[in-house]
């Protein structure tokens, strides 16, 4: 019989990591990531998990420890949020460059200043260009499933890159949900032992990330890009394997929800998508042809799935829980980049939504759909990103 329990999202993640039999865990606590690493520390201290738990003095060190451990051939894991993820940034570029396949939970939280501990995606989006694969989840169950998949994706010989599972702080980490757990034997069959081709060995010394001049540097960078873009088929395969193992189908790199005949398609990532689905259902009852495309795998970006989902749509409204200051939201820019120049393609409008925990509810979604339809009907070119529910009266 399946092991089903109501657990906190953080506990579900810790149990997934435990099931993956990591050798090394290194982490520095930061809200709202703390419960995950506390749970893992407890498991190690209680002897329930045979792993080296390294308490470090900063997130820079946490990322460095898991990089080194990964180079030594250990399955390694860390987690952080917000400022902590930013402090890892330099190391993460190097880790991806050295093709070290560890797993990070990126617990989404706003970036200071001003200080705020609530959810948005600015932190993990800031790591968009590191070469770390990013998966965004909507529920605790999906967080559990995707951490199992993350190790397998990271360690796939054709990929060999760090994988970050991004989950919304508080909303997912601190909520209690029904979660189905796999038994250890099933996880072991799904995720064999980590045996990298190269590992640190004093008997056979090697160096990682050695010097590269301009004559080959581009090729090294392109190799990472290629591992990502060509890795999409491998990720799809691993997602499908997860589905046959769990019976849960999240749709692969994206989840297309009622997009089939949709004229207006919303795009969102993370827990916000749950709200959007409910709003889509209500709008559908009212006869509006609305759907949601939830991006699950953000890097590599699922262009193929995007193009398939928006075929036939008039307008695509992106809900971006991040902003590139002076430009628009990151997801909106990605969506636009691939649709550019396609005759008959939909109009894409970007909305900056939910920064610092600003609520995005069904009323917000309805307003977005109305606005998108009006902008489309006006016949004017799409405007710059609009900031949802902004209160201009208090802006200096």
């Amino acid at each position, binding site marked *: 019989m399946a092991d089903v329990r109501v657990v906190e999202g953080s506990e579900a993640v810790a149990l997934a990591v435990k099931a993956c039999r990591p050798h090394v865990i290194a982490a520095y606590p930061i809200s709202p990531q703390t419960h995950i690493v506390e749970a893992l520390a407890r498991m190690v201290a209680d002897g329930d998990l045979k792993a080296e738990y390294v308490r470090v003095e900063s997130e820079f060190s946490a990322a460095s420890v898991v990089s080194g451990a990964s180079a030594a051939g250990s399955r390694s894991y860390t987690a952080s949020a917000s400022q902590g993820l930013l402090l890892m940034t330099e190391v993460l570029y190097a880790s991806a460059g050295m093709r070290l396949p560890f797993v990070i939970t990126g617990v989404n939280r706003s970036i200071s200043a001003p200080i705020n501990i609530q959810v948005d995606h600015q932190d993990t989006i800031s790591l968009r260009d590191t070469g770390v694969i990013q998966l965004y989840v909507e529920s605790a169950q999906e967080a559990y499933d995707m951490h199992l998949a993350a190790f397998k994706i990271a360690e796939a010989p054709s990929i060999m890159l760090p994988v970050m599972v991004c989950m919304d702080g508080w909303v997912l980490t601190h909520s209690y949900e029904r979660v189905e757990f796999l038994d250890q034997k099933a996880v072991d069959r799904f995720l064999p032992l980590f045996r990298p081709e190269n590992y640190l060995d004093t008997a056979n*010394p090697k160096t*990682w990330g050695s010097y590269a001049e301009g004559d080959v540097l581009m090729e090294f960078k392109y190799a990472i890009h290629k591992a990502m873009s060509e890795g999409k088929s491998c990720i799809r395969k691993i997602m499908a394997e997860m589905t046959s193992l769990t019976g849960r189908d999240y749709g692969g790199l994206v989840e297309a929800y009622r997009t089939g005949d949709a004229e207006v398609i919303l795009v969102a990532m993370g827990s916000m998508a749950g709200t959007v689905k409910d709003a889509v259902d209500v709008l559908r009852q009212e006869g509006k042809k609305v759907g949601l495309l939830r991006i699950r795998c953000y890097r590599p970006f699922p262009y193929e799935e995007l193009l398939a989902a928006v075929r036939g749509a008039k307008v695509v409204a992106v809900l971006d829980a991040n902003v590139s200051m002076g430009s628009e939201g990151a997801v909106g820019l990605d969506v636009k980049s691939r649709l550019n120049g396609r005759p008959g393609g939909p109009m894409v409008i970007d909305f900056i939504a939910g920064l610092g925990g600003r609520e995005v509810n069904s009323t917000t979604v309805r307003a977005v759909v109305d606005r998108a339809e009006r902008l489309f009907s006006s016949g004017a070119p799409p405007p710059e990103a609009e900031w949802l529910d902004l209160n201009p009266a208090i802006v200096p």
Partner: protein
Amino acid sequence: MKITPGAVVKGGTSLNYKTGNWRDQRPEIDAESCKQCGICQEVCPDDAVRQVADRYEIDYDFCKGCGICAHECTAEAIRMKNEEK
């Protein structure tokens, strides 16, 4: 030759690159004053000090002339001299 994922290569390849020509000052050890303590060898960031029989020698193929050895030498037996090229 193909590049390797992660730029992983066998170790020790820096020996192929003689970086001593970056130097604009060269350390010179005065054998008379040297007490054979070996501090210069320990502190050298380029591993460019070798113990040869009863004395220490600088490997000028790799010494970049940073001067740490001269600074740390307790016997003041190492002097930095301008390179003339």
